[in-house]
């Protein structure tokens, strides 16, 4: 009895997840696809729970997965029934839950909104809903009974040679698929092929990075590296405008991520106001070059400066901002630093917003000129992407060299133990300051690129969520590793650009990902090896858990 009831806990957890997805409006957003999302959630939960209890009898596992299926689906059905009857009697549910509108109920019950409002019976629809969800859970439980261990060992013997080259083949195949989309004869999803192409590119970049990590050093790896780099260089030429524009955005975030990675990943200083330096970069170039800016209007004879003159100025100003903030606050304990930097980020935005005479307040800096190179206008998405990629390459190089230098090693030492680092002769304040300054410089650089790309920038572009986006990107990608930044930027900045419809779930998903990542995989998707080792040290000094002591 007890063992079959132990299915109740995961069942309640599954119910909580489905209830959450339901209330935040999945059915409203995706229509009846939401049912299949719910089914997938139940399938996964049931599969994972049953796999963990693989030793118990099949009947028990099936009962458990039945409970996992029935509890959430009946709960959901009951709730939907209540909402439907409220909607039928003209009680507005959306006063409390904004997403519960008649189309929401309709999507779950297979009716139309008019039918829901007219009070048509939702019971048949709910019946099939319960049936689908429960069978998904039972299916998950059933599939967990298959002998996977045997399958795995069989596979391992037969396909040994194939498996070692597989990581190399996947990216190449993906790139070939991406190229084939360019053929005039290929027609996909009524002209959605640019998005599909981007998706292929993302997976190509991701799998290439993965392949580069898994393959041992050797000729094969070098060859693959060369091919991958050449392909990457060719990408902007092959892309259309939209694709280049999205990738340009991703690269700007990669540069920012590499900068923040130095501050958070290498030196272990949590900077939540990183957007401030981004804003400094964007505004300093913008104010010095935009024809509507206060400086150009009020200084007679000043025509504004070019991108190549503005970039160093922006970088120097970013550096100064970094040092100005860094000098007073870097003596502080790590947690205080997070709050102070957060405050600083907000101060910069508020000042940009309220210093109306100089910054035009909410109407922002408009008409920022594009860069020219040898008389050639770089203002189109393709050339801007090349520009950003070039800067990203430089920044990556600098970051890698820094990491392996004396400074980089002192950053890591300091992150691990300040006391010991100090005893080894590392000057804490100046080492921290260096990390902070490098971060600020990179952010300022990416801010300038961002300003050029956006043409118009507004104070609201530099709100707190940019800092959080960049933080989430480096943490999910793998803190302290450059590949991780690339993966993170693709996953968190690039993917939502394609999936515009899920944009409103973006921040929620980031938050949940951050929490989940910290609990299950604090080193991120593609961690630096050192970091991985650090986070998985057997913790010997921990407190004995109370429960164990009681036994």
């Amino acid at each position: 009895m007890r063992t079959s009831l132990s299915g109740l806990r995961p069942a309640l957890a599954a119910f909580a997840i489905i209830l959450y997805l339901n209330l935040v409006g999945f059915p409203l957003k995706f229509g009846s696809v939401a049912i299949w999302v719910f089914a997938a959630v139940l399938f996964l939960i049931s599969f994972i729970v049953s796999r963990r209890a693989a030793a118990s009898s099949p009947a028990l596992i099936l009962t458990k997965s039945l409970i996992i299926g029935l509890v959430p689906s009946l709960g959901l059905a009951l709730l939907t029934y209540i909402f439907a009857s409220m909607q039928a009697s003209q009680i507005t549910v959306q006063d409390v839950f904004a997403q519960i509108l008649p189309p929401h109920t309709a999507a779950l019950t297979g009716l139309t909104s008019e039918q829901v409002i007219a009070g048509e019976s939702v019971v048949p629809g709910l019946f099939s809903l319960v049936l689908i969800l429960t069978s998904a859970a039972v299916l998950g439980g059933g599939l967990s009974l298959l002998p996977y261990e045997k399958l795995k060992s069989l596979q391992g013997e037969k396909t040994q040679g194939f498996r070692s080259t597989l990581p190399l083949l996947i990216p190449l195949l993906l790139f070939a698929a991406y190229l084939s989309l360019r053929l005039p004869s290929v027609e996909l999803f009524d002209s959605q092929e640019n998005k599909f192409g981007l998706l292929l590119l993302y997976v190509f970049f991701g799998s290439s990075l993965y392949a580069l990590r898994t393959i041992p050093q050797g000729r094969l790896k070098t060859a693959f590296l060369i091919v991958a780099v050449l392909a990457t260089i060719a990408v902007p030429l092959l892309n259309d405008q939209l694709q280049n524009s999205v990738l340009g955005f991703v690269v700007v975030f990669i540069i920012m991520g590499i900068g923040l990675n130095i501050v958070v990943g290498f030196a272990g200083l949590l900077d939540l106001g990183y957007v401030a330096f981004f804003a400094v970069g964007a505004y300093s170039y913008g104010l010095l070059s935009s024809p509507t800016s206060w400086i150009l209007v009020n200084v007679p004879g000043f025509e504004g400066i070019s991108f190549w003159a503005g970039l160093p100025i922006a970088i120097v100003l970013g550096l100064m901002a970094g040092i100005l903030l860094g000098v007073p606050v870097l003596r502080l304990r790590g947690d205080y630093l997070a709050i102070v930097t957060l405050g600083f980020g907000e101060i910069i935005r508020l000042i940009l917003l309220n210093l109306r005479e100089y910054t035009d307040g909410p109407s922002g800096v408009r008409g920022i000129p594009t860069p020219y190179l040898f008389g050639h206008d770089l203002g189109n998405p393709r050339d801007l992407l090349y520009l950003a990629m070039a800067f990203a390459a430089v920044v990556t190089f600098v970051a890698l060299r820094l990491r392996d230098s004396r400074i980089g090693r002192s950053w890591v030492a300091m992150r691990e133990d300040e006391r010991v680092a100090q005893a080894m002769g590392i000057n804490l304040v100046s080492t921290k300051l260096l990390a902070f300054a490098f971060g600020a410089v990179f952010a300022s650089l990416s801010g300038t690129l961002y300003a050029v790309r956006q043409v118009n920038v507004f104070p609201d572009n530099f709100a707190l969520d940019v800092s959080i986006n960049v933080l989430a990107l480096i943490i999910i990608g793998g803190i302290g590793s450059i590949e991780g930044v690339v993966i993170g930027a693709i996953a968190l900045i690039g993917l939502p650009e394609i999936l515009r419809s899920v944009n409103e779930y973006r921040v929620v998903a980031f938050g949940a990902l951050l929490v989940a990542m910290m609990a299950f995989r604090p080193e991120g998707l593609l961690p630096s090896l050192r970091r991985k080792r650090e986070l998985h040290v057997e913790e010997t000094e921990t407190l004995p858990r109370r429960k164990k002591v009681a036994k």
Partner: protein
Amino acid sequence: MSSFNPPKKGWLINLGPSTYRLVGLVILLAVLTWRVNDVLNHETYNSQYWILQLINGLILGGLYALVAMGYTLVYGILLMINFAHGEVMMIGGFAGYFALTGFQALGWTSGTPLESGLSVLLTMLVGMLASLITGIALERIAYRPLRNAPRLVPLISAVGASFFLQYTALLLFGVTPHYYQKPAIISSGLSIGDTFVTFTGLFIFFSSILLMVMLYLIVRRSKMGRAMRSVAESKEVSALMGVNVDKVIVFTFALGSVLAGAAGVMLGLHNTVMKFNSGFFPGIKAFTAAVIGGIGNLPGALLGAFSLGLLEAVGPSALGLPAEYKDVIAFSVLILVLIFRPTGILGEVLSEGKA
């Protein structure tokens, strides 16, 4: 911070080796005096305005104090900024809004003084309950698995939880602001001389003081409070002495969350509006208040909160700046306090080796 030569204890300013701090302070004070003098000489505002701002500051201070207690309790025990504490408050504010709307539908809010007063108290209780559940769930899901992780890890988890809760509220309740309808009993006010004090303000001020006294008694007099203080000193030794550390931590979160829930309802009554991001900045400022007072120090949090509330209410006008700069002032005060007196006004109460 770690240092092998502990700096000498100064009376107000911990000067240490750097005299440039003193120079900075002198310049800063000179500029501030000049600005304030300028504003006072021009008599931009009359005395009534100042009194009104002072009262406003006290109300705000009471609010911040309630939230700051939660930060300071959790920081004292876990050495972690519960970044999502402001969101816990926001959830309480939303729950309070729905409760109040319910009482309004029942006709209680405009009914007899008893009904009206009861609706205020019950709204507050609903807000506290919602925050309590959120706070405990937060501890269980986002923080407990990370108890022994490096310090950056729970902090990042907390940032994630904060944004998760904030945008969940956006999705659940929509972008439109939810307007609190004040119950009849606190919707009016009374005039003392020339100044008008709202009953809402009085209610917020006195109930926050009452709640804080209760908190102080719990922490100082009860058995659980003693356990809390012992866990703050050392988890390991407390566990050896028979203290259930997990339970104490949950209790700490519960205490903080209940106060935050009350603060959320008060915030709703004070600003008459609740939005998905209503909790974030009050939360950050309450943390600022806790740091200003000296983190881990309950009376310090109270003092810090009232100083911050007053500074925020009076500061912009005293310096002749528009009111939009009140956030800038709050954060600048935080930075200044951390430079000149990193342990806060009353000093931190953290155990040896943790600070």
